[in-house]
């Protein structure tokens, strides 16, 4: 299980869990679970386009995640946010489906993009992933206090002259970074669980923000590591264990 061949997967997953756990804390605080679900899906056509053109998948994923952010901001200013998110994810996925159907290796790529290919992470994709995760953590630490204030109490934040709009952009941008980094590993559909369940459980268990934030990262690591181990032993897909263990984690924190 710890053979050098799988070393990349473990390292990538650990980095990703750190990033997702820390940002997930803010996703829960801002009640943005739907956006956290939709943005990875918005990155989906990027992965499809990259396959089609033969460029680096990360480039395509990041590009489309950013497009998704743009779409979301434009639409939610005009109309309702949940409608905007719903239409965003449907239209981007439809575009991805179209692009994949134009290419050749349709079926296999769809599963990989949607549910991840954790055990097939090549060494050269590790470096950009590490860069993205470190970048995310640095950005988050840089704006930690204003973002925390703006997420937990918008009224207080505007009293403290924190620009609401800019903070929303900033948060969505961070979300786009996590999506681009996470899709190759866990796929577009399950990035979401990684973002939401550890953070939701952590906030239920601990009231103090900093402690809950740290716990959220720790729980994300535990979730990813146990899912990887189970997936290795059972030979079942990683996504299944991330999804079900994540739900179990949240439910048990509710019972606590």
């Amino acid at each position, binding site marked *: 299980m710890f053979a050098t061949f799988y070393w990349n997967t473990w390292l990538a997953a650990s980095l990703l869990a750190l990033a997702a756990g820390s940002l997930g804390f803010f996703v829960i605080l801002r009640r943005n*679970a739907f956006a956290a679900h939709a943005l990875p899906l918005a990155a989906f056509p990027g992965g499809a386009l990259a396959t089609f053109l033969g460029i680096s998948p990360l480039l395509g994923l990041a590009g489309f995640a950013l497009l998704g952010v743009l779409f979301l901001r434009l639409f939610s200013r*005009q109309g309702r946010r949940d409608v905007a998110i719903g239409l965003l994810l449907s*239209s981007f996925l439809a575009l991805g489906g179209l692009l994949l159907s134009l290419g050749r290796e349709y079926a296999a790529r769809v599963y990989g993009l949607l549910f991840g290919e954790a055990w097939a992470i090549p060494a050269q994709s590790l470096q950009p992933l590490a860069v993205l995760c470190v970048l995310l953590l640095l950005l988050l630490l840089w704006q930690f206090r204003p973002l925390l204030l703006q997420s937990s109490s918008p009224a207080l934040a505007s009293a403290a002259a924190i620009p609401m709009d800019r903070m929303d952009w900033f948060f969505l941008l961070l979300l786009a970074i996590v999506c681009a980094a996470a899709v190759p590993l866990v796929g577009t559909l*399950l990035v979401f669980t990684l973002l939401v369940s550890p953070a939701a459980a952590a906030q239920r268990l601990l009231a103090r923000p900093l402690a809950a934030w740290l716990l959220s990262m720790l729980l994300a690591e535990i979730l990813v590591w146990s899912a990887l181990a189970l997936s290795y032993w059972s030979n079942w897909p990683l996504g299944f264990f991330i999804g079900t263990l994540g739900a179990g984690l949240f439910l048990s924190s509710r019972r606590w």
Partner: protein
Amino acid sequence: MTDPLHLLTFWQNEAVRTALWIGAVAALLNAVVGVFTVLRHHGFAGHALGDSSSAGGSLSIFLGIGSLWGFLGMAWIAALVMGWLGLGRAQSRDLSTGVVLGATLGVSALFLYFDVTVTQYSGATVDVMFGSLFAVAPKLLLPIFLTVFLAIALVLIFYRQLLLIAADPQLAQASGVPVRRLELLYLLLLGTAAALSALSIGVILATALLLGPAAAALRLARRPWQCFLYAFLIALGSVWLGIYLAFASYYYNQGTSWPVSFFVVVLLLLAYLTSLYWRPRPVRSS
């Protein structure tokens, strides 16, 4: 005889006729349920139920049972779990929806993997996630019709109460409406709508059919009943035109047709965009 728009071949095609019928009833149910969903800010729940039903779809391929019951059954289970976890306050609604969504996505990852590896059916992922109206078996028409008929009948019976709950839950509670029971009914209806569109136009596009027409109609209509009518017309128009465009694309692309779902979603998006700029008004209620 010349047929530049391929209309004759379009009408004569058996798969197309089935697709038009299924599309029409899916549009009807989604438009009606969608209005309540958009009114209540339950877009995420609606989307999650569609995604959840995909776990049932993948399971039914694995077990070899009818896909309709797989989709519907899983959507109903997910709806009941969501109702049990509570959709009341915005915070807990977001989380309970997310948890159900995460768990069911994990389950569909597993069953799709089994479908591909055990039954050697590599198209399972595409079929379940993206769906194709042209691939719906004609023998599903009758059960789908009956389900939609039942669902619409239930909406009509409880129309006033459901609308009151959507507009003002506290007022509904105070005036003696059985809110909890109707809440569950509404979730089951939402699950039914999501499952039917997941089955016909694909899981990922179900959300657009549920939210797009209803949101557009809510911006255009002046009275409650107009919402339902406009939503239905927009949904029906998009689905039918999408079917036609997908059919015609076969001829314009030298024998490879573009997915139906792509056209339907683009049309739904255009309809919503038009409604935004038709009567722009600041909405401060989100």
